[in-house]
């Protein structure tokens, strides 16, 4: 598919990875040479690619990962406050994903097991540095904390799915993935 025609102004895009593994960001970069078609259309605000620390007013916010600690909540709210369109990308942002597999366990038991009980893992007690954000008792998909406009499922979504979605969105069409591009795994 060809990229949409160049708009009068570049769309400002912010991305972040919360309780995720950056796999969705890697899959985004996996659109490869199509990045050259995309870059005339967009410019980046806060993203791991620019290392800007706070999100300013943006057209599109793309959030990877679910919500597992207090900092995730702050970052997500900053994105929602600044982005006209907020997109949840990947299984973790959409469903909680792998981190949410701890949800049927007690958080204190998890920390105890990892940092105290299990000899091969323990490194001197549960970390309590004030710089560390406090974990939440459960991991949540991001739509449980803020309103989300679009969802791209997948672990990660394929580069083709991300490309199809973004080009539809930038061209002003309702993004539609269809068979082969929509995937939950």
């Amino acid at each position, binding site marked *: 598919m060809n990229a949409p025609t160049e708009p009068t102004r570049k769309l400002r895009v912010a991305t972040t990875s919360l309780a995720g593994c950056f796999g969705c960001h890697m899959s985004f970069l996996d659109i490869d040479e199509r990045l050259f078609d995309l870059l005339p259309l967009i410019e980046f605000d806060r993203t791991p690619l620019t290392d800007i620390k706070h999100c300013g007013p943006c057209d599109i916010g793309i959030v990877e990962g679910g919500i597992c600690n207090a900092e995730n909540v702050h970052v997500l709210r900053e994105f929602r406050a600044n982005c006209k369109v907020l997109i*949840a990308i990947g*299984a973790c942002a*959409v*469903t*909680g*994903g*792998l981190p*949410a*597999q701890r*949800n*049927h366990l007690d958080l204190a038991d998890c920390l105890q097991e990892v940092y105290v009980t299990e000899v091969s893992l323990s490194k001197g007690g549960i970390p309590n540095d004030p710089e560390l954000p406090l974990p939440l008792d*459960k991991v*949540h*998909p991001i*739509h*449980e904390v803020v309103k*989300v406009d*679009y*969802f*791209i*499922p997948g*672990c990660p979504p394929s580069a083709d799915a991300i490309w199809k979605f973004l080009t539809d969105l930038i061209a002003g069409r309702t993004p*539609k*993935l269809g*068979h*082969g591009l*929509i*995937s*939950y*795994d």
Partner: protein
Amino acid sequence: MSDTQTFLLDGEEIPFAPGQTVIQAALAAGHYIPHLCYHPEFKPHGSCKVCTVKVGNRTAASCTLPAQAGLEVESASDEMNDLRRTLVQMLFAEGNHFCPSCEKSGNCALQALGYDLGVMTAGFRHLFPDRPVDASHPDLLLDFNRCILCELCVRASCEVDGKCVFALSGRGIDKHLIVNAPSGRLEDTDVALTDKAVQVCPVGVILKKRVGFAQPIGARRYDASPISAQALADAPRAPAGDGRCAACEEAEEK
């Protein structure tokens, strides 16, 4: 004048034989109605409601609705598909459906239905229930996290295998799949790998051990074509069993 009776499905005439349900006649005539707990080989259960259609101003599960001459049935409409999408979303939010780690991914009817209906998110608050697995059986794993209470294993075990290994217990949100053994464990039943009940699970609850990802992701059933394109070839089949097993009939009579 022909003796064949017909009803209208989305404006098209569908012939039916007396005793057929709406979904049976529709599938036999080459018209797909999305469904999950319906299976051509077993008695209809009518629980998942994904096959819901509109008849007049009312909705009905087409797997339990007897076909009648002159019915005007609406199925492939935005209204019905929106409703089906919501039902599938609720199933995803209610269980622990973590597709990236599921051996059934790509062969799963719930997942395939989600893809086909364009379900991008469960939308609802996920319940994250605590459902321990049963790995007691040497050849089979039961992962209750993915159970959608379709009762296909219950019906297959009863109607075809004559063993009634599985059952549903509890009511409402507490309803869950159980194993009919005093210990509640699968190893204490006479379930066999060749049982129909082991073959029919549409999701990843009843899994054969040591199979895993032998069939790779990407080369699986619903990777090739969507469930709507496969259901038609799959559906018109004769019932596999001859009704409830003797023990169940007896229990129901009491």
